């Protein structure tokens, strides 16, 4: 690998990092909190690459390879750049839900009652995150509350088990690489829906079935459903 190529790769890597960090593309791959760090990293890389290119030009002769022999693996740095530019992949969806390891319910410290009260002040139906709704499966008090109180959930459709639609949303640990799903089985949905369609559903927790099969998904009795646009922030996070 020539010195100039190395500088070019570093510059391009920096520019692409900045591109992702400064646009909404960030939300497809990383937690929003990473934005400043990715911006900093991108800026440093561009500066470093430009410095290397300038220094390289100023020396008329080829510099002795001072550190260690450059190996060909370095070209792979171009791989994520090419993949990102060429495919522009979106946030993880139903495929990831199918592939995820099963049986992960987030333990959360969440005052459901207070939340429901605060968010239904003007007669609106309170919205919950899927991970909060799924957690209710394991919390007795939450179960009782959700049997009676209708809530709204926003997620995408996934057909995990048979023909019945599930509502799903992914939660990130550190990044999209370790995302795991919260799923809710939907009951009372007549019309066929494609995978990865984003919808908002309104309903209550089914009192009969709180644990279904091995996936431990709660069941929601749906009273209303409408398609929505994919939210800018497709993943969920603990509040």
């Amino acid at each position, binding site marked *: 690998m020539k010195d100039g190529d190395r500088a070019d790769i*570093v510059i391009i890597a920096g520019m692409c990092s900045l591109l992702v960090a400064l646009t909404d593309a960030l939300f497809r791959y990383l937690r929003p909190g*990473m934005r400043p760090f990715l911006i900093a990293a991108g800026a440093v890389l561009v500066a470093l690459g430009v410095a*290397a290119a300038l220094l390289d030009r100023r020396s008329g002769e080829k510099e002795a390879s001072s550190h260690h022999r450059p*190996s060909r693996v370095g070209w792979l740095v171009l791989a994520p750049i090419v993949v990102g530019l060429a495919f522009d992949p979106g*946030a993880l969806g139903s*495929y990831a839900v199918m592939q995820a390891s099963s049986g992960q319910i987030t333990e959360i410290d969440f005052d459901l009652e207070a939340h429901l009260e605060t968010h239904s002040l003007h007669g609106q139906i309170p919205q919950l995150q899927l991970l909060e709704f799924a957690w209710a499966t394991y919390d007795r008090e939450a179960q009782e509350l959700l049997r009676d109180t209708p809530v709204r959930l926003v997620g995408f459709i996934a057909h995990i088990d048979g023909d019945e639609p599930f509502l799903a949303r992914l939660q990130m640990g550190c990044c999209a690489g*370790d995302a795991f799903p919260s799923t809710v089985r939907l009951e009372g949905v007549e019309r066929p829906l494609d995978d990865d369609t984003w919808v908002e559903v309104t309903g209550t927790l089914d009192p009969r079935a709180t644990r279904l099969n091995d996936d431990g998904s709660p069941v929601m009795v749906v009273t209303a459903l409408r398609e929505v646009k994919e939210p800018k922030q497709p993943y969920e996070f603990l509040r």
Partner: protein
Amino acid sequence: MRSRSSSKPEVADRQGTAATERRSGIVWAVVVLALILRGSLAIVFGSAVVENWSTIFISLVLQAFPFLVLGVVVSAAISALVPASLLARIVPKRPSVAVGTAGLAGALLPGCECSSVPVAGRLVDRGVPAAAALTFLLAAPAINPVVMVSTAVAFPGRPEMVAARFAASLLAALVVGAIWSRFASGERLRSRLRAYHEHSHGRAFVSVAVSDFIQAGGFLALGAMLVATIQTLVPRTILSSVGGHGVASVATMAALAVVLSICSEADAFVAAGLTHFSLSSRLTFLVVGPMVDIKLVALQVGTFGRRFAWRFAPLTLAVSIAASVLVGRLVL
């Protein structure tokens, strides 16, 4: 001895011809091609599988980038600005104390594995006991602050992972140092490093930083590709059975760590992506990786010779696996 070219016309002449030799232009050609094909590639090759793979791949690389850049910058600064003689003065000469000090010194100096081997080589050249230099070689990439922070970020809500990584890595480094000191202190270890011309500090820094980033970035991309492939294409049932089973999962993680050669500032994110594997087996991945992998062994052969590597690598592998399993059992 290389003399500086002093006459201007000569330099200008060289610059004219050298410009095309300095870069192949492949980089920009590839990027332009990717942009041109954008959209059409997605139509032809796009599918849920490809998209899933791509998103995981890009996400892991981007998440690791800030830590990689930080680690590379600090490590390049240290290697360009801090002479080995200074380090040699800090480490005490008595073997037992030296090993312990070297281990803890590793906690302070962010350094990719690629820099710790040459540094250890230079320490040895300046009279630091071999066991201490080797302890430093093992500890520095594994327990420095950048690595600890990146591990904390990669496993949010699980600080025990950070503690376990620190404890197991330090333990492994100290044990290897102690064993080497006990059984191999008689022989003299010499590095095969030649003194290289020190350019100006600034130039050395930039050159080292760019080289390190390219190499570390390449291995990171490789590791991220592998995780994306595992998580996208391997059936979930297989992953769960391997990942859940004790011996198989530890062995798989250890093997992956050796093969993947990912920089320690970034490997935590790759480990976080292997969600089907137990936490303790992933700890093995994180402890073994910075100490034994293909890239490291190659570096060690180049710096200390084949005979050394033959004994050092298996020893380190065994100790690091044992330490990670032990600490994993206690902490995780």
